[in-house]
């Protein structure tokens, strides 16, 4: 199996404050990785460093053996990226399809607009995300969940090798989230994707991912998802007053009430 992302001794310092400290991480191609940790723990900084948006203060990152800062200049689409916040104008003049077509811009290159083939691909991913019927709707008028689905279709439309999602569950209800994580699992194989997903929801993430990284400035744990539920790891991430409640498929309280 090829190594998709290799991180060695990565540190990032912002305004004289260490945001990431001595991170070592190796992610194999085709794996689904969850990155969890508290707010301010450096999750978004780590993915921005992987994307080449920010430069490490020390250490090195390699994406399929290459420096991420050099990837934007290459024709190949390595990353599909879903940022946490968009902050766009509430009247942003764009249909859902226009937004998904933005994911094709790197492939079309300078001086050219996406063509018929790009539209077909964009429509395919809109349909895959269950929002094909909204292709002509104004993007900024869609609900948070619909915008999120369109944005994920945009991230996939470039047919990337690595999909990076920053809090993709935002705006999706519980059922929608479950469907969405199942969809990601199926894409993993279908598109030979490597997926990195940042989430604050440690409980849900452990159910779906292959490996989990627990980050709070330092990387406290990387490995089997169940290992992240260890008391020591949880205390390192969130402090002492943290516990995870695991519940079975049967709601005991509901059963009790029903029998009364």
């Amino acid at each position, binding site marked *: 199996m090829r190594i998709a992302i290799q991180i060695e001794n990565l540190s990032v310092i912002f305004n004289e404050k260490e945001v990431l400290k001595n991170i070592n991480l190796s992610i194999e191609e085709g794996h689904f990785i969850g990155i969890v940790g508290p707010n301010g723990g450096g999750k978004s900084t780590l993915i921005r460093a992987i994307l*080449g948006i920010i430069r490490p203060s020390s250490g090195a990152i390699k994406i399929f053996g290459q420096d991420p800062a050099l990837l934007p*200049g*290459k024709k190949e689409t390595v*990353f599909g*990226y879903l940022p946490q916040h968009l902050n*766009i104008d509430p009247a942003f*003049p764009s249909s859902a399809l226009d*937004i998904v077509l933005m994911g094709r811009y790197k492939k079309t290159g300078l001086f050219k607009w996406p063509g018929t083939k790009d539209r077909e691909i964009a429509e395919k991913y809109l349909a895959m995300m269950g929002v094909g019927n909204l292709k002509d709707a104004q993007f900024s008028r869609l609900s948070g969940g619909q915008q999120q689905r369109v944005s994920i279709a945009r991230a996939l439309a470039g047919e990337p090798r690595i999909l990076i999602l920053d809090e993709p569950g935002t705006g999706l209800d519980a059922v929608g989230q479950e469907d969405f994580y199942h969809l990601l699992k199926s894409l993993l194989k279908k598109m030979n994707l490597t997926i990195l997903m940042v989430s604050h929801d440690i409980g849900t993430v452990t159910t779906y991912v292959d490996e989990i990284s627990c980050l709070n400035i330092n990387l406290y744990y990387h490995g089997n998802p169940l290992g992240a539920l260890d008391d020591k790891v949880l205390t390192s991430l969130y402090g002492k007053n943290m516990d995870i409640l695991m519940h079975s498929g049967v709601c005991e309280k509901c059963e009790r009430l029903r029998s009364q």
Partner: protein
Amino acid sequence: MIEIISSPFMQKAFLAGILISILTGIISVFIVLRKMSFIGAGISHAAFGGIAIGFFSGLNPLFTAIIYTIFVALGIESTSRKGKMTEDVSIGIFYSVSMALGITIISLSKSYNIDLFGYLFGNILAITNGEVLLTLITALTVTAFMVTFLKEFFLITYNEELAMVSGINVRFFNILFLIALSVSIVISIRIVGIIMVSALLVIPGATARLYAKSLISMIAISCLTGFTSVVAGLFLSYEYDIASGACIVLTAAAIFFVSLILKNRE
């Protein structure tokens, strides 16, 4: 009507006015969507310093103002980035310093006969053939540049980080946009004036934002608003002998408010 169109100075005013209405119509879309209206006001006021340098040096004030405002725009970008401050702070600094510099130079040069009023509020009578040519060349160049990289500017406007990941050099394009903005402002000064030129960078885009469903339709509505404001404003200016800048801005504002009322009635 025929008298207005046949007069040579009005022909020059219309030609320059139509060119700048198309150029500012495109720029205005991005100014509004990127919430950059203060930088338009800042650079236009800063142009006063560049115009004063022109008076002092004997060079064409529009030419010196183009060079000066490009430096101001780059200064604003660099100061914001290096000083880790929001752009509105550095705009506030550069714009007041440039105004102060302009007033100091004009006071020192003792040139009281210069047409300051024309530069501040617009004076179509003062447009020279050379300035029409300067407007023609710069407007066509900047419009061609914006149209060529429309897709890139659209993605940067949507989300800068996504643009970076898509291989767009965002800082480079942001600097080019600031240069395009500076040039557009200066070539509009003769017609609209320093005080009011920022209105042409905001009102057409704001009007288009009310109705547009796509980038192309937003640019089309914005250019049409700018074009109508400039043409109607120039007619009113000629007819009632009022400063052209004021007529153009009031016409644009009327179009905006009527559009807003109609939109809210929908």
